[in-house]
């Protein structure tokens, strides 16, 4: 497989399993949690891929595995043409210049005993980079770019609000001008008015530096706002991947339909006349996933074949991939709970 020059990330058949151990002194491995079970995706320079799904679908584990914060069980991860799947800890250090991460909780991601200046300058120190004009000037420039007051260089994280702390995390992530930033639920802890500010900031930085984002989130509206393409995960699998507008206007996987129909939209007239599917029950256990298609136990379109044969992710039209034996174009009236 040749890597196109503008492709920044290629993930192939990534699997991350966690062992389940028995209780007692001899902790034998008695099973595996298949958190991520064979996902493949690519990301181009300057592009944003949204990765959405509900809790337990494996989206965060996938994001962490891609940056090698969690050890993948199988598959390959190529960053900017280089296979990083099995690199040692020390060999990963230079990789961090190219790929950074922004975390969900701006309260836990920053060391409370370090000043903002030392937090944002950490990448320079770790990587031994000497920015022209000195570290302090570089850090203050970064602070200005993310909308923080550069004079607050010597303050501590507890002196900042949640939104400002997320800006500190963003400044740290862009310090070395990475080509990829993995964002794990970066705005879900923020109030809507602050969330919008941070989404705009991420967008501006992308336009300025051409950084690519892998944007992990559960909020489908936020993902529509920021992404160029969207991948939907369910129980460790990508079940559908499509350009943004296609995903939101003409999805094909029954799970995507259910998910989109469950999100209430801030428009009373339209919301109260939308067709909706209520999924029955809860997510199956990833220790013992259903045979065949993982979604079949809650699917309105499931048939005999779905329990026998796992559907592969196939391209229905250019760029639109669906893992389903019986893709649907709309929610059938017979299964909607509200017409």
């Amino acid at each position, binding site marked *: 497989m040749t890597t196109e020059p503008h492709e920044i990330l290629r993930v192939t058949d990534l699997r991350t399993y966690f062992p389940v151990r028995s209780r007692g002194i001899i902790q034998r491995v008695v099973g595996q949690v298949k958190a991520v079970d064979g996902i493949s995706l690519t990301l181009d320079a300057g592009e944003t891929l949204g990765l959405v799904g509900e809790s337990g679908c494996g989206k965060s584990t996938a994001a962490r595995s891609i940056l090698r914060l969690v050890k993948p069980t199988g598959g390959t991860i190529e960053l900017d043409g280089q296979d990083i799947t099995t690199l040692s800890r020390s060999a990963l250090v230079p990789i961090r210049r190219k790929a950074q991460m922004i975390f969900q909780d701006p309260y836990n991601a920053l060391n409370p005993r370090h000043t903002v200046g030392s937090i944002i300058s950490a990448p320079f120190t770790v990587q031994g980079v000497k920015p022209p004009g000195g570290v302090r000037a570089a850090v203050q420039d970064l602070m200005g770019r993310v909308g923080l007051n550069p004079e607050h260089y010597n303050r501590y994280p507890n002196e900042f609000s949640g939104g400002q702390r997320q800006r500190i995390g963003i400044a740290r992530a862009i310090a070395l001008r990475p080509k990829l930033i993995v964002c794990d639920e970066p705005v879900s802890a923020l109030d809507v008015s602050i969330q919008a500010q941070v989404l705009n900031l991420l967008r501006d930085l992308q336009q300025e530096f051409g950084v690519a984002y892998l944007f992990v989130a559960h909020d489908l509206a936020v993902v529509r706002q920021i992404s160029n393409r969207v991948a939907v995960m369910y129980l460790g699998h990508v079940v559908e991947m499509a350009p943004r507008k296609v995903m939101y206007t003409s999805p094909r996987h029954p799970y995507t339909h259910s998910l989109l129909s469950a999100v209430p*939209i801030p428009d009373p007239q339209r919301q109260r006349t939308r067709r909706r599917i209520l999924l029955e029950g809860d997510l199956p256990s990833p220790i013992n996933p259903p045979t065949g298609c993982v979604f079949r136990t809650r699917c309105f379109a499931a048939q005999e074949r779905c329990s026998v044969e796992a559907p592969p992710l196939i391209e229905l039209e250019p760029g639109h991939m669906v893992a389903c034996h019986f893709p649907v174009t709309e929610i059938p009236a017979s299964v909607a709970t509200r017409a």
Partner: protein
Amino acid sequence: MALPRASADRPFLSVSDLSVRFPTEDGLVYAVDGVTLSVDRGKTLAIVGESGSGKSVTAQAIMGLLDRRYAQVSGEVWLDDEELISQTEEQVRHLRGSRMGMIFQDPMSSLHPFYRVGDQLVEAINAHRSIGKTAARREVVEMLGRVGIQAPERRFDDYPHQLSGGMRQRVMIGMALINSPALLIADEPTTALDVTIQAQILDLISSLQAETGTTVILITHDLGIVADVADEVGVMYGGRLVEVAPTGRLYERPEMPYTLGLLSSVPRMDRERPDRLDPIPGNPPSPINLPAGCVFQPRCTYSQIVGGDTCATVRPELTETEPGHFVRCHLPVTERRRIAADIVRELAGSPR
């Protein structure tokens, strides 16, 4: 919605001039500042606002859940024909769980981890009614079934940790409703849940409400949920209600600049994106040091239209601009309607 009227035709729940203050080392925290609202029987009022807007404290004050040693509560809360604020804790405790129930965001912290879920519901019955052991068990099993728990007979003996988050939330709804309260307050009942489970829970609350005629106050930060279930909406900011309107009207013809800011900040799942969102600049005010005039003035882009320093120094009152629609803003009515119409048109401009 109407402001409290004479007692003869008083709405089912009416709150007038409710204020809650917490003395702290750093000064007096004005958590709730003069909230006045009312809800008719069987209706759903949503209170929306961001963190620190005072929406949860308002709910807790109505339920009598605030510890009077730490909270200074003033104002009146009338539930049907009873005033709650002037009652003793003992009296309010009798009302709680029987006449009014509450659902919280996190079901795990409201269910006791050591007791079987069925027994916890039985206890809720016994606290207010004396019925036999078998009758109580029968009633609990029936309630667990009604809130959508499969095999309720078996689940009766489960401990909370054996249930999923969605099921725990169902158990809590069952517990809140077991004594058929006339008022149900749901404080962010689905915030900790996934959207597909959230849809199940919202449907459950609506259908139980239709069945029993319960009056619901829903506290949320999610404008989508409000659009889905509320009859009326109160928008809170900095401890004050800044706009109150019937749900449809609030989305179609909002007037208060903060409401406009909220509506323009929300990313939309049902529309192709604008290039950039239009967020409210700045940060919410500190509840210790609230602005002297309008609480929203420091972030408001329209206060110069009013002119002078009116917005910064004079506290606007919640005034009725149309029957049922109340706004707390110094902007001239025609002016704010013109601004709002532009924004609403722009928001509706790019359909999917």
